């Protein structure tokens, strides 16, 4: 209110009109120019484009067809997602009902013209029957759900103290700590999983260390077991757990804890009565973000798990690449999606509610 910028030749100053006296006051020195280049260049470019005849012609045509900038802005990403995200799913569903055959592509068409007169629908349920009757697949689904659930709980147990410690750290520490949590998330997933192979091997760092301090007499076998898969998932998905937990813990009003303490509540009880319930949105978001991708995980069980570790992502991969049974792999994907559709929709509701609340 009453503030503006004054541009004298060469220097720009912030000015303010004093409401009472009406005197214009200027800042003592010229204010630094900041990123002036981009708006000027892009603005100039845009006006140049807007002025040129082909653009005007196209714009008027578009306008007549009811296409304005607004609807174009929605339509382009919308169409892209429909074509490259939704349509592929429908194709997966379609192929899951097809029969395998040795050809390129290796499945029979769903609709077939018979004598050019009528269309025959070859709905083939055998893929689903096989998935439900073959113990291997049922076991793979159940064990993926179990491994994902166990590792989600483990990630929460590991992540909560870290997020809590970060939220209670001095203010100046928080941003660097946050960066430190995010940094591993940016580095390659594959590389981080690979790093654990060197640690968990029989002659790896962990065994060497434990032998050296004399806790164990002979090396432990950890690599190629489910324990290694748990460690891999907890390690890889830890940032996904810490970030939402931290953001809900950091927002917490500290006067609530002080009030609890004033009323005679011991700190550990105050934690369970005040802090923990208030961090629930963070816990829910974090658990979803870990559980849902972990169910379909492929890299971790493939590199860290053993032959006894069955997870559906790995089964689907080998069904597709090694056995080249595309219809069965599609059916496996459809069932996996049905298993995940409830948590995914729930998560999405949760997210869009939160974003609408402006959080």
């Amino acid at each position, binding site marked *: 209110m009453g503030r503006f910028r004054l541009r004298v030749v060469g220097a720009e100053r912030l000015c303010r009109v004093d409401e009472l006296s009406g005197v214009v006051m200027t800042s003592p020195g010229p204010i630094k120019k900041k990123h002036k280049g981009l708006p000027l260049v892009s603005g100039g470019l845009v006006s140049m484009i807007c002025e040129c005849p082909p653009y005007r012609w196209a714009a008027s045509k578009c306008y007549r067809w009811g296409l304005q900038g607004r609807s174009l802005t929605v339509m382009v*990403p919308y169409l892209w997602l429909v074509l490259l995200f939704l349509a592929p799913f429908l194709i997966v569903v379609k192929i899951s009902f097809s029969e395998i055959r040795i050809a390129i592509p290796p499945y029979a068409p769903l609709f077939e013209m018979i004598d050019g007169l009528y269309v025959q629908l070859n709905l083939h349920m055998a893929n689903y029957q096989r998935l439900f009757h073959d113990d291997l697949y049922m076991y793979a689904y159940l064990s993926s759900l179990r491994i994902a659930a166990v590792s989600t709980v483990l990630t929460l147990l590991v*992540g909560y103290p870290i997020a809590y*410690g970060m939220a209670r750290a001095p203010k100046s520490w928080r941003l660097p700590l946050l960066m430190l949590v995010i940094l*591993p998330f940016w580095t390659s997933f594959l*590389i981080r999983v690979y790093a654990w192979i060197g640690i968990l091997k029989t002659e790896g760092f962990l065994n060497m260390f434990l032998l050296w301090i004399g806790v164990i007499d002979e090396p432990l076998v950890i690599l190629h077991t489910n324990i290694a898969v748990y460690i891999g998932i907890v390690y890889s998905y830890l940032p996904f757990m810490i970030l939402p937990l931290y953001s809900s813990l950091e927002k917490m009003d500290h006067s609530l804890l002080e009030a609890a303490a004033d009323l005679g509540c011991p*700190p550990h009880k105050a934690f369970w009565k005040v802090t923990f319930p208030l961090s629930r949105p963070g816990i829910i978001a974090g658990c979803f973000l870990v559980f849902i991708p972990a169910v379909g995980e492929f890299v971790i069980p493939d590199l860290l798990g053993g032959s006894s570790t069955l997870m559906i992502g790995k089964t*689907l991969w080998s069904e597709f690449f090694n056995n080249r049974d595309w219809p069965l792999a599609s059916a496996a994907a459809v069932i996996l*999606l049905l298993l995940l559709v409830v948590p995914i929709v729930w*998560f999405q509701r949760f997210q869009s509610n939160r974003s609408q609340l402006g959080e």
Partner: protein
Amino acid sequence: MIKSWSWFNKVSLIVGFAFLYVPIILLVIYSFNESRLVTVWAGFSTKWYGQLFQNEGIMNAAMVTLKVAFLSSTLATIFGTMAGFSMVRFGRFRGRTLFNGMIYAPLVMPEVITGLSLLLMFVAISLDRGIWTITLAHTTFAMCYVAVVIQARLNAFDRSIEEAAMDLGCPPLKTFFVITLPIILPGVLSGWLLSFTLSLDDLVIASFTTGPGATTLPMKIYSMVRFGVTPEINAVSTILIGIIATGVLLASVLHKRRESQRKNDELLASAIP
């Protein structure tokens, strides 16, 4: 008064960060190992890096990966910004629920499903698979991440500046480029960086959607890892970690400097009596 930072908090932070960083640090240290055995230290050497640059397979894969990452992250940033803008600004348009669903679902969708479905579609429309199909696939899932980042940035945006520009007769498109874009630019840039690294990292979706001749770096590393642990993988991993860490740190430092400059300007403005 509550003790704000107890010993428990400190210990959990130290243990937690050790858990996050020790594996990466060990990986980097042992990339300079003389011996072929990854876990036995035999003296400092950079010979694995030298071998890396003579390995034609790895260099080709790196080129393919960089091309895909540049193209797909640029496309994803454009589409993601449009999508994020639509989600925040256009209120309830027709098909909004589906749109939101398509933005949030790829974030949590298991990669095997995304990869499989895209491949089956590319086969169904008989598109030649290769570097282009990987780019299309990466653009699709990265744009959803960008949309979420932009959305967060736009939610904390003062609309009155835009309205002022439009009141003064600035057309909407120009308003976007002159007013909105410079303000959300940090979000756009971090969205670009995020999609770049997502594309750089991706193994599963690239393996499904690739064709003959287009091998990306993660695919190459994966096939090397399956044959065993070698210092060469450590070396290539160290280079990747170095590039990404530098990029992220640089971005955050630049962002911080700009924020503090903005704060200084505001302070200066309010300091006038």
